[in-house]
């Protein structure tokens, strides 16, 4: 029932996550931020089993931070995604696997490029120009396929993510009240309104 969307632009990544925290058929909260900053330039969006999600996200967040303090370097989006994937893949064959789906988005300050990684609870990880998780993916991927370009500008990306959200509002049976939209670029991570 949750929905995460991400797209890579010219020199930024735009991410959107719905803000509803639901349990069974009840909405418990409608202002939940389903993301954690892994460092200044890398953000992780999460969805899945409640409890597992925040626990896993904070575990990754703190281990990435620990690595950075220990070695004195900032992890690139690729490095963060590779580490996270390994944790999920190991967890999959444990007694109690994490049921968490992720989007890892970020700006690589050394390669000067923006990147987006789609990771599922099995530990499958792919680098993609745009991605979505959850039921929302069935409605939004077609729009992203049609309108996304590798050199899309931030203003165009905002219009496109608005299109995706409007599509969910009109076709998806579940009411996803609101979306938290964030942009990650060379200046860091910031929330924006559309």
């Amino acid at each position, binding site marked *: 029932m949750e929905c995460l969307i991400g797209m890579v632009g010219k020199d930024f990544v735009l991410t959107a996550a719905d803000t509803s925290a639901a349990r069974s058929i009840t909405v418990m909260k409608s202002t939940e931020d389903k993301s954690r900053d892994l460092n200044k330039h890398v953000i992780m969006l999460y969805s899945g089993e409640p409890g597992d999600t925040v626990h896993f996200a904070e575990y990754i967040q703190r281990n990435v931070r620990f690595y950075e303090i220990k070695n004195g370097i900032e992890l690139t989006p690729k490095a963060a995604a590779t580490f996270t*994937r390994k944790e*999920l*893949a190991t967890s*999959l*064959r444990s007694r109690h696997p994490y049921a968490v789906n992720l989007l890892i988005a970020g700006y690589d300050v050394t390669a000067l490029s923006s990147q987006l990684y*789609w990771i*599922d609870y*099995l*530990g*499958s*990880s*792919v*680098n*993609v120009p745009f*991605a979505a998780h959850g039921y929302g*993916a*069935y409605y939004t*991927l077609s729009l992203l396929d049609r309108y996304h370009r590798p050199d899309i500008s931030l203003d165009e990306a905002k219009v496109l993510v608005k299109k995706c959200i409007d599509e969910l509002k009109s076709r998806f049976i579940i009411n996803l009240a609101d979306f938290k939209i964030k942009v990650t670029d060379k200046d860091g991570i910031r929330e924006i309104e559309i």
Partner: protein
Amino acid sequence: MSILEYNGGAIVAMVGKNCVAIGSDKRFGVQLMTVSTEFPKIFPATDKTFIGLPGLATDIRTLSERFRFKINMYKLSEEREIEPRTLAHLVSSTLYERRFGPYFVEPIIAGLDKDNQPFICGMDLIGCINFAKDFVVAGTTTDSLFGVCESLWEPDLEPEDLFETVSQSLLNAVDRDSLAGWGAVIHVVTPERVITRTLKTRMD
């Protein structure tokens, strides 16, 4: 549906005259939803050997990393490149270690040995090796691939003809499989060099 068919994908390898070819599609999906079209499933093992890993995407990544580690360790301790036949047994025993909780991949190995003799083999998910003299197929498209390879393959093909045969076999087979396709990569290994080509396919 089997977990081996969760992400989709197809791999084929063929023997030619003093050469081998191996090809895969590039789709990565979750059941019928295509997530990425840049997910090749073939990994270089040595200068003249490739491993193809169709199956569950998470295990493809895990195993490609484990094999890279094991091949590098072999090179360091033996001070020579691993032979394709040896590699096949290394892959096989790595899979059989997980006999009762397997990795969901069906590897294919293709390469030239130290005398430049072609070698190909396939394997099931617990490491039972199938040595073949002609061609091996694996992934979600095996049924179509067997049929088309059976009719197109012939002995002693030269590298360029072998490339054409593998390409046409793979392309025509994946067009009949909704879980595979969306681009393809072919490697032809000859004693002199490796020819890698990316193919355009139907994107529907």
